[in-house]
């Protein structure tokens, strides 16, 4: 038996992979609660930032230029003597605002279009599909760059642009799931009982399409936080001197060799936040019994 070679083939997916029956583990475990605790902390701090006893995130303190982390400034101060902890907490507001609002916008429009396409099929589906293809034909980042060049950088603009760019993927997930669930008996039964299209869509299909799409949305949230980071790193998000994680990294990068803590603290915060969201999403995907739905 030990002579049996380890040949390729008939390898079922890994035990850590996705083919395990979905409900094996009942507890969410540390890989869920630890990231969840981190996200909660970031959200609470960002939400209450102005109530906290923090130094101003934009006022310069010439007595404390480029201080390494110590007791007075837990995360140190930057080249202009601004408290990095305070800037990081205020910066989280932007990441979270854009990271939550843009996908929310995309989810709303995308789900509406996707469910319409998946439920009515036919010409409606073709038109919506073609429109989405057109949006996808462009590298999204270019659209954002070009429009901000014209209109000027601002957070609402970023939310709208990034939101629109997420519409196609949300539309696809919503359409695929609508297609699946529209075949189920409960939908056919509702139709047979004379329910209107609106009723079927809102009462029968929406609750079922919602769950997979919300889990998918977590993935989009983490991606949008990264994209916002890129844009604010390039100076295309909230204008200076207001902090975002991205522009803190960009400002700190100048003195990377001597003052590495300045860019690496916001970088680490961003990394942990994105990682946490991904971990939560992965856990929920594995936990929720998504048999039949398409992710």
């Amino acid at each position: 038996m030990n002579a049996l070679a380890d040949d390729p083939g008939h390898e079922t997916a890994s035990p850590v992979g996705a083919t395990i029956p979905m409900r094996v583990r009942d507890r969410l475990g540390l890989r869920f609660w630890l990231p969840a605790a981190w996200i909660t902390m970031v959200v609470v701090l960002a939400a209450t930032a102005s109530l906290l006893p923090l130094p101003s995130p934009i006022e310069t303190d010439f007595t404390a230029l480029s201080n390494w982390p110590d007791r007075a400034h837990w995360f140190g101060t930057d080249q202009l003597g601004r408290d990095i902890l305070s800037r990081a907490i205020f910066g989280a507001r932007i990441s979270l605002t854009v990271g939550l609002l843009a996908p929310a916008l995309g989810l709303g429009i995308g789900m509406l279009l996707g469910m319409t396409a998946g439920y009515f099929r036919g010409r409606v589906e073709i038109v919506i599909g073609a429109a989405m293809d057109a949006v996808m034909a462009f590298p999204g980042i270019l659209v954002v760059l070009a429009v901000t060049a014209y209109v000027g950088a601002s957070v609402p603009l970023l939310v709208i642009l990034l939101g629109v760019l997420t519409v196609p993927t949300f539309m696809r997930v919503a359409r695929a799931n609508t297609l699946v669930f529209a075949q189920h008996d409960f939908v056919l039964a509702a139709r047979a009982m004379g329910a209107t299209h609106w009723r079927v869509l809102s009462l029968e299909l929406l609750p079922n399409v919602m769950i997979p799409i919300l889990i998918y949305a977590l993935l989009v949230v983490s991606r949008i936080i990264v994209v916002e980071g890129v844009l604010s790193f390039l100076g295309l998000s909230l204008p200076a001197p207001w902090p975002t994680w991205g522009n803190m990294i960009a400002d700190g990068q100048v003195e990377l060799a001597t003052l590495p803590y300045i860019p690496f603290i916001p970088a680490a915060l961003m990394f942990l936040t994105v990682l946490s969201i991904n971990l939560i999403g992965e856990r929920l995907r594995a936990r929720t019994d998504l048999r039949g739905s398409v992710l």
Partner: protein
Amino acid sequence: MTSYVLRKLLRLGLVLLVVAAASFLLMNLLPGDVALALLGNEATPEAVAQVRAELGLDQPLLMRYLHWLGGFLCGDLGRSYITQVPVMESILDRLPVTIELMLLSQGLALLIAVPTGVLCAYKAGSRIDQLANAVGLFLLAAPVFILAILLMFLFALKLRWLPSTGYVPFMTDPVRNLAHLALPALAIALAEWPSLFAVLRGDMIKTLQQDYIALAKAKGLGPAFILFRHALRPSSFTLVTLSGLQIAATIAGALVVETIFGLPGIGRMLTGAVYNRDMMLVQGCVAVISVGYVLINFGVDLIYALLDPRVRQ
């Protein structure tokens, strides 16, 4: 095969027209005024009118589009508002740097993703597979600019193995050229690796359960031959499509990485143009990059047909 290519070519033409129109409209339908953007809000109406006339902005939209499209097809993208240098000239100047960076990073990403993906599919569930998946999870959470700064800090500033900023043309000194591009390319490649890896690994695991792999084993072929000569090609369809779509992510990566490492590429020029509101330059860059993106995805479709004989019909 020929009819497949013809159909794809027709589609390519249509998409290119759409992309060109969109690039143009983006600049011309948005609220706001180029002349105002250029001159600042304090400009006198006379000055604004003069600039508008100079730029041909007083013409009807369709005329302007046809004029622009004609120029675009002849390689004339107008002149920069600020430097007065022809846009096409600036772009051609910077393009080689960006193309080299993209080729290097995409090549590097595939060079890492293919062996790891194949190995981890073959050893699915083993220690090494779990390790690779964990690394993937971490890299997926690390945006390209964080990776770039980390790499620069470690390899350029602390270990001093590679230069941190600057650029030397390939023709001048190939070795120094590659030394300057190594870290930027690696940063983009590492950011792209997780998704390429995951897709290949997943498809490969499915392929390895196919009967034709069992038959290949029954023929007495060895594991390396089976993995790379039998299983890799049918497992790489999604990978190829994805690596085409990933170019979009690479473009974003190039914008950031060129800025961080001070590479004189088109990405850094575009970012600069956005700051300076040099609309002609922005429009030109957007048009050229978008066309390049569309052409790359056209190439990907052709590769797809080469890989899968069933598609050609």
